């Protein structure tokens, strides 16, 4: 599993999910609303979570498919993690497996920002970058630019300090 599936195959296949979801499921591509749905199940007393969540139920099924794909990959290929990428960055930690639980705190913090930011921005890489930008929506183009600025700051300035 060392060479990745080339982008010119993987990218269009991901793009195909957009019409597939529309035709087969009448849904716009996205995944981060699944977190809101979970909130709606667990903490329905918070106003933001007491919403018509049935429209987001499909995202839990979609998420289940994602989890299964990870599980299947583990069964077939094992934990293909650090190994796959050339360590091209300038800080040393890239030589080790980043997914070690000793990095749990950093991942937890990153997760909080992902969850908070996705809801605040009203979408994530799927809903904004792919679904939204392909509609040429101003909101999604702005969010995508913002994702990248945030990502540059995190990757260049924060990660070398915390990993």
């Amino acid at each position, binding site marked *: 599993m060392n060479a990745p599936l080339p*982008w010119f195959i993987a990218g269009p296949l991901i793009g195909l999910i957009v019409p597939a979801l529309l035709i087969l*499921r009448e849904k716009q591509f996205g995944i981060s609303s699944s977190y809101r749905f979970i909130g709606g199940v667990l903490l329905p007393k918070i106003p933001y979570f007491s919403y018509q969540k049935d429209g987001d139920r499909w995202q839990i099924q979609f*998420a289940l498919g994602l989890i299964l*794909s*990870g599980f299947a*990959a583990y069964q077939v290929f094992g934990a293909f993690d650090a190994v796959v990428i050339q360590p091209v960055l300038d800080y040393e930690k*890239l030589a080790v497996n980043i997914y070690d639980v000793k990095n749990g705190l950093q991942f937890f913090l990153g997760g909080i*920002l*992902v969850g908070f930011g996705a809801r605040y921005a009203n979408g994530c890489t799927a809903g904004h970058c792919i679904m939204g930008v392909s509609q040429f929506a101003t909101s999604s183009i702005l969010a995508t630019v913002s994702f990248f600025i945030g990502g540059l700051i995190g990757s260049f300035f924060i990660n070398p300090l915390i990993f």
Partner: protein
Amino acid sequence: MLKFIITLALGFFFGSILLASQAFSWYRIQEMFHFQSFHMFGLLFSAIATSAVFLFILKRNKQKSIYGNEIEVKPKKLEWKANLFGGLIFGLGWSISGACSAPVYILVGLHWKIGLILLAGAFVGTVLFALVERKLPKA
């Protein structure tokens, strides 16, 4: 049941592509933000282009869903402060955890310990947002 299987299968397909292309990986995300490979950019741009072409065709053909309904595609509402500030926060999280929302789930299956930590973090972040959202600048 049919809807469930379709959605599950599409999620599995999506995850498999993210795995095979390594787009789920922390390392690929760092590589992207350091502009050290075209891989992730090509992947995102070609996904967007493919989606845009199909959206155009669906619209032109007035394509109906398999349930016989008109397909409705709505852009997300522009709330520039929310898109901007939320985007920055999301981007920070994306680069630190090396995972956006979909890879969080993939990692639950692949590396369940880190995956569950990430998922717990993402849920805590969502709850924090739910608690403060009325006070945040949006439009």
